[in-house]
């Protein structure tokens, strides 16, 4: 197997393993489906160029997330992306959801979009990528106790949001 073939194989394995989760992560941090797709493509383009520097396959996920976060930071510095209406994004839906459950999911999505980045980022790393608190700490460069506090508060905010909007009927504004 030539070096190029091997390199392509490694890259394709990374793409197959992480592209979906990276897209989900990108979508929720930038709230823009077109930009999310672009961010993921740019992430993999940079990864392709720098693939030889990735010595530890076990570190690939964090490496890709770091590339994507840097790329997003650069993008966001230039221009605030236009937010997507979350309902326009294709979501994997369970058709058997009861109306109340569907409403709750919409509220949850709206709540996630409203979360401040300091709460949203660790939550996404944990839920989308399955990162442990220690891994999030390392990825974000903050202490583990700070990560745990932010994760707890993120969930509390989401629960509060659902209760508040659910009770006041604000969900109707979302459809």
């Amino acid at each position, binding site marked *: 197997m030539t070096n190029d073939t091997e390199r392509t194989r490694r890259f394709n394995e990374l793409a197959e393993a992480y592209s979906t989760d990276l897209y989900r992560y990108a979508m929720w941090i930038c709230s823009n489906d077109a930009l999310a797709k672009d961010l993921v493509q740019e992430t993999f383009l940079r990864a392709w160029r720098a693939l030889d520097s990735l010595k530890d396959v076990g570190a690939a996920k964090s490496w890709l997330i770091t590339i994507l976060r840097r790329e997003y930071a650069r993008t966001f510095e230039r221009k605030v992306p236009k937010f997507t209406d979350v309902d326009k994004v294709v979501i*994997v839906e369970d058709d058997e959801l009861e109306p109340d459950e569907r409403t709750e999911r919409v509220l949850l999505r709206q709540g996630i979009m409203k979360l401040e980045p300091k709460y949203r980022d660790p939550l996404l790393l944990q839920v989308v990528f399955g990162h442990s608190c220690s891994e999030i700490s390392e990825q974000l460069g903050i202490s583990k106790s700070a990560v*745990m506090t932010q*994760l707890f508060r993120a969930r509390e905010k989401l629960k509060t949001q659902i209760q508040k909007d659910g009770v006041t009927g604000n969900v109707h504004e979302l459809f």
Partner: protein
Amino acid sequence: MSMNFSEFKKLLGADPWNRDPETLRARNSAPEFEAVAVDAEAFEEKLQAALNVQPPSGLLNDIKGITQQPAQSRNWMPLALAASVLIAIGAVGMAWKQSNQWDSVEEYLADHYSHDGPGLVARATDTVDEQLVIQIMASLDASMGQQLAGNLKFIKFCPTPEGRGAHMVVSTDQGPMTIIFMPKTQVTDGTVITFDQMQALMVSLEHGSAAIIGTQTQTIESLEAVLRESIKTGLVGA
């Protein structure tokens, strides 16, 4: 010392799937602890489902197509460049050939631009590596003169109605404009279409075509002459 109820709630609020022995002991210590744990897991499943956004179709294939682009860390020699041209030309019509999902070029342009055009314009502020421009254009059986290449802020492969093309963002004195190069697609020269507050001018080239896309306040025709002079097509008569 065992975990109290408040500590337990906070721990699960941060890490709902925590299965440390101490956490499990606390969970089994009293019904209210168990109830909190069950609630936390139920919420987590809802959260997981809410975040489950489906990627656009074709994303994985687009990413895999990146391997046809040069690696920056490599020292590209002229022979390697020539080889990559041959490989890339061979690849056209294979990996990037899409089923013709648009009824017209106009529909394709509106659909393609609305998909990622604004995002690319927003991000296109860096100077593009000259070697990358040469590589991409060469693999599309074309070349680009410095007058246009020198003002490029972004370039990548993109799907077109008939195979692979290039999506570019150009810096102009009227702000950024987008060029979609479609090496295998014929257009009616000079046609202007509008969509989503944008306008596109179609330019027929010796082989294939290009579209200049800008806002409706920009004079997109101002880029036409430069485009015609700069993009040379059909270099190897493919």
